[in-house]
């Protein structure tokens, strides 16, 4: 398991899961909150990835 995308997706899944379960009580709210957080993680990773694309370090 060396794929950057897989590792960040799994990481985002666990963090979103725990935060959703802590923050919300009903399964519906947990799913909504967790889904939004997971999507936010992936979206920001892609956005940052493309923003950094023209700036090789």
């Amino acid at each position, binding site marked *: 398991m060396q794929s950057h995308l897989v590792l960040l997706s799994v990481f985002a899944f*666990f*963090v979103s*899961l*725990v935060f959703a*379960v*802590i923050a919300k009580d009903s399964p519906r709210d947990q799913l909504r909150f967790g889904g939004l957080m997971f999507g936010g993680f992936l979206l920001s990773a892609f956005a940052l990835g493309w923003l950094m694309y023209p700036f090789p370090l």
Partner: protein
Amino acid sequence: MRATAAEQTQSGGLVLLCLASWAIPGAGHLWLGRRAKGLIFLVALPLMFAIGLAIHGRLFPFDVSEPLVGLAALADVGIGATYFIASALGYGGGDVRAVTYEYGNAYLIVAGLLNLLVVIDAYDVASGRK
């Protein structure tokens, strides 16, 4: 004002609850009857920690001369008994040459910090704040 015996017993119970919740992720919620939440924490957090070990993350030593290493060690210990079991079994040496080394560290550190959040949540539930 001195605390009554009942209050002292209750605060003792809270300390025990927090210790249990720290040692075994989700144990505090299970204790409080929140079975679904407790089971999710019980599975998710040790699994995240195990993935961190499997991808060559390092369990940092308590080295106060290196503040960041010391803080990382504190975060690692946040996962509770799992940390000591993994250390005793010889896991967590880390392999800095592995591509996934930094990811492994992030998994281990964040699993510990998330468990500390779970402990705080169990405390809030037990003390009636939530």
